[in-house]
């Protein structure tokens, strides 16, 4: 069963809150929807909340980087929020450092970050 991640809108910021373990095709579907929504709503910011995830592997991380790059090409900024301690350390060991994507502790901090940039 494909998982449909809800994308909320707050002003011109989109919030994609991933609540469960996604398969690769779920992630790719999410990527397509986020990019459509950025255009449709002329969003200036996108937040990916991954606080419920307990794994972010190379595919997931790379796709998030790709989404961030595409969002940026649309003139918006993206922040990933809520990477859990154990997930963060696993990512580092895998060599996944998300060097080009801003991160924030939680949704609130992420929103503040985008607010300051706006």
């Amino acid at each position, binding site marked *: 069963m494909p998982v449909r991640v809800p994308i909320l809108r707050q002003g011109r910021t989109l919030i994609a809150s991933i609540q469960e373990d996604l398969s690769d095709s779920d992630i790719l579907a999410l990527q397509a929807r986020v990019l459509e929504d950025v255009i449709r709503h002329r969003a200036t910011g996108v937040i990916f909340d991954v606080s419920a995830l307990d794994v972010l592997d190379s595919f997931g991380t790379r796709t998030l980087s790709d989404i961030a790059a595409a969002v940026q090409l649309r003139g918006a900024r993206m922040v990933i929020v809520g*990477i859990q*301690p154990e997930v*963060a350390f696993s*990512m*580092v060991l895998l060599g996944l450092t998300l060097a080009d994507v801003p991160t924030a*502790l*939680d949704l609130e901090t992420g929103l503040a970050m985008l607010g300051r940039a706006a």
Partner: protein
Amino acid sequence: MDDIIASSGGRHGPPGGQIADQLRWFDITETDRRQAEALAVTADELAEQIIEDFYAHLLSFDDARRHFRSDEQIARVKKGQLKYFRELVTAALDEDYVRNRRQIGQIHERSGVTPTLYVGAYAYYLHRLGHRVMDRMQDDPGRALALLLSLIKIAHFDMAQALETYVEAREATIEQREREMSELPTPVLQLRDGLLLIPVVGTLDSYRARSLTVKLLEGIRDHRARAVVLDITGVAAVDSAVANHLIQTMTAARLMGASSVLTGLSAEVAQALVKIGVTGEALRTAGDLQHGIEMAERMLEI
């Protein structure tokens, strides 16, 4: 006890834990055992006198005398020694024997008998016994020498058991200390809203480095921290593995959304970091804790 014997089996060197291998290593044959045993009667007759002489010798050293609190204690130790030397010539050199010898080694180690004292006492006994045996067997000095050489082989095997125990006991003590050091708690201090200070003191072995990572990352989550100062002034030795681990931890902190500053690096460590290719961009450092905190506070303002 079994554990101690078994654990010695995994150690390096030709004589493994197997007694048969050890005997082969010391080149101790059935002939040697028979020849040593041939000395049993002589040794029995002479042992008491040798031990008396030995204690006279021993007690002329102030350091040694301090080990003995009373005459009864001296009498008891003498008796033990008599038994020890009697067993040396009649020993079956089997597992029970080795276990017993190791037990004695442990007791020696614990009561502060140094290897020098132990080996010296042995040498004294062998030397005295040797002279007396040569005297008694003047008519057959060749045989006397053969018997003594066999006894010396067995004595060396015997000493090896005790010395192994010394080494093991020391190793266990060192391990214990290291464990204690690595169990030193690492506090996570909140200096102000969003700013954590983690002072690390002691040794950072891989176990403790891992638990430091967990504490730092969970500290960020629990205190909603946006900046962390990691102070390693009090860390004894930072090798490249530990440095690498610290960098990974700080990178993970950034993934969680917190910036971090490393303070208290020694010049050597800083150099080691440059060698493994760490640059200022990947790792923010400050010369001392004060500057580190100031740096972290500026990060909070951004």
